[in-house]
């Protein structure tokens, strides 16, 4: 009350303008006191629709300018990123950890597979309905897990969700009559509409057998864009802020009237819905739902992607997922071409290098890729502000 009203002008204070914890570094604060200049509209709907359209245009450009092989990989990136987006909301915003998202993906994938089983002769339901069913089924499972999870903290929650990751794929072996056992269920590829062939013909002139894979890649990317649109809406809204309050200070959040348990469960449900869609897309992309696709290592990879990208950031989740898909083959190529290793050797070495990269990133950029960039920007802005204040 007696201090000066301008923020402190000493140069040393510049770096303090960033959030003090790495956890919060990657998710931007949407609430602005002053109308800062921005080329994006302030209204959330317009802002995110604009980003959605630009994202869609970039995606078409990317899919049409790369080869079929890369198209398939981009499809993989898309479903991983859908799950990682949900996980980054859960872990980055509401502060709960989950090592069981792979299992939730399995629920979505098996729901899809049961509805699109190749051995069923009748007309398959529309893909939209299938996706909705997969999301609904996973949401129910997610709500059950979420209710249990809201009572657990840190390592206990990690342990419980890990048990889920280990246990749920095992169900496929137990109910092998309906769920296909070790072999899993083969998924009927989705029907490709004619307009798609024509459009692709126009855009890049591609045609022939690969078009089906391309169509699937497009479906995956579309799911990614829609999911991120919804997740971004939530994160920018009061929901996101409330989750961050629950994460940062339980007692203070509770005194503000936030019921910790219900908000934690809500975060779990949203993130499970994303995982369910991710599983459904996975089933379409690989045309198979089998226990081997949902080993605990999938859950761990998702968490890795989210942390490397920057907790709480959708861009980070997307970057992290892209790294998961593109980094290992790239490392194998380097091993083979530069170091003259054999294929198997290079593949083994790539795991080591990958692990080392993760460790190094966490040591030097604990806020993740996006978080580190954002912290640097905030510091620069603060430094510029102090410089301007000093020059007056």
């Amino acid at each position, binding site marked *: *009350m007696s201090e000066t009203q301008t923020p402190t002008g000493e140069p040393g204070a510049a770096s303090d303008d960033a959030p003090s914890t790495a956890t919060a570094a990657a998710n931007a604060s949407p609430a602005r006191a002053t109308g800062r200049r921005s080329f994006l509209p302030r209204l959330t709907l317009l802002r995110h629709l604009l980003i959605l359209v630009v994202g869609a245009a970039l995606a078409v450009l990317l899919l049409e300018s790369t080869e079929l092989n890369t198209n398939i990989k981009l499809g993989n990136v898309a479903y991983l990123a859908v799950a990682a987006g949900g996980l980054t909301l859960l872990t980055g915003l509401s502060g709960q950890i989950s090592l069981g998202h792979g299992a939730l993906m399995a629920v979505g994938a098996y729901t899809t597979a049961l509805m699109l089983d190749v051995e069923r002769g009748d007309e398959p339901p529309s893909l939209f309905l299938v996706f909705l069913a997969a999301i609904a089924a996973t949401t129910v499972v997610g709500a059950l897990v979420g209710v249990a999870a809201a009572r657990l903290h840190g390592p206990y929650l990690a342990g419980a969700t890990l048990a889920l990751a280990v246990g749920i794929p095992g169900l496929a072996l137990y109910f092998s009559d309906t769920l296909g056992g070790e072999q899993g269920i083969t998924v009927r590829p989705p029907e490709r509409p004619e307009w798609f062939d024509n459009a692709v013909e126009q855009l890049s002139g591609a045609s022939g057998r690969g078009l089906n894979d391309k169509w699937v890649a497009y479906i995956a990317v579309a799911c990614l864009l829609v999911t991120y649109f919804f997740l971004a809406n939530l994160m920018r809204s009061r929901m996101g802020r409330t989750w961050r309050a629950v994460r940062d200070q339980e007692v203070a*959040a509770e005194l503000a009237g936030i019921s910790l348990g219900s908000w934690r469960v809500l975060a779990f449900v949203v993130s499970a819905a994303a995982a369910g869609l991710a599983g459904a897309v996975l089933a379409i992309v690989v045309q198979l739902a089998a226990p081997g696709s949902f080993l605990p290592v999938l859950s761990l990879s998702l968490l890795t992607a989210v942390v490397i990208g920057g907790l709480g950031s959708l861009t980070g989740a997307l970057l992290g997922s892209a790294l998961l898909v593109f980094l290992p083959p790239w490392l194998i190529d380097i091993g083979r071409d530069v170091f003259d290793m054999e294929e198997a050797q290079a593949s083994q070495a790539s795991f080591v290098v990958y692990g080392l990269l993760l460790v190094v990133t966490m040591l030097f950029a604990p806020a993740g890729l996006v978080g580190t960039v954002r912290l640097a920007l905030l510091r620069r802005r603060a430094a510029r502000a102090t410089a301007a204040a000093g020059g007056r």
Partner: protein
Amino acid sequence: MAEPPHDRTTERPDRSPTARLEMSGIHVAFGGVTALEDVSLTVEPGQVHGLIGPNGAGKTTMFNVACGLVRPSSGRITWRGQELRRLRPAQLSKLGIARTLQGVALFPGMTVLENVMVGAHRHAKAGFFSALFAVPTADKDDERLRRRALDALAELDAVAYAERYPGSLPYPVQKRVALARALVAEPELLLLDEPASGLSEDEMHELGELIRVLCSRMSVLLVEHHMDLVMRVCDRITVLDSGKQIAVGTPEEIRADPAVTEAYLGDDVDVEADAAELSGGRHTAPAPAGTEEAPRG
């Protein structure tokens, strides 16, 4: 944007508080240790009620009972004719009760403005699905909360810090932000836990004036070490010693009460020195055990 900056007054023209907090016969025991024994306390509408006593007298426990962080083993807590004993802390805010914590307990990952906006949680209207589909009314609702938060910050002279992160701010500013976060909920009862700790003489004086302004629209329960502040702002004071209530009355009555003097002097505790230590050295000291980690049922 369309709303006038001070729309709060138009929403509720008559803001004089009418509700009374009554706590009677409160017993609290932690394990075998009795922390509070048959303590009663009434906060009259629009009054500032002080809760004082030597260290370990049970002030903070009583305070935590009032806001649901500690459940008493027996006794009644009534607010607007409603029994509060079975409530959880998250439900208090809906009833118009807000409190500040002894440590400032701000959300480190959010800007000051967002911190205060969280405090306005109970005034939010937009629900989950309007947020999911980014319906423009959700934006408008959030804009409303933002204005409320800026108003609350303005009342505490803290608007300049709106976009900063709390970790970078001096302790007295953090305390103001924490107070703004409680005020933005527009409570009818404000529970203040040691609001003057870590403040300078001048700041404490301003805080006293602020509390007198606040009590025109809410009742205040104040736990405080600084005797001069308590004597200056309180309408009535309850004195606790070793979990028992030893005196209730106006500041003049309390000052003249021999039992109070004895409790303070007989305890070998120099009140002034105690107060000086609290206000001086510990600028970012964590809250003593009992506030943050209070056992909850």
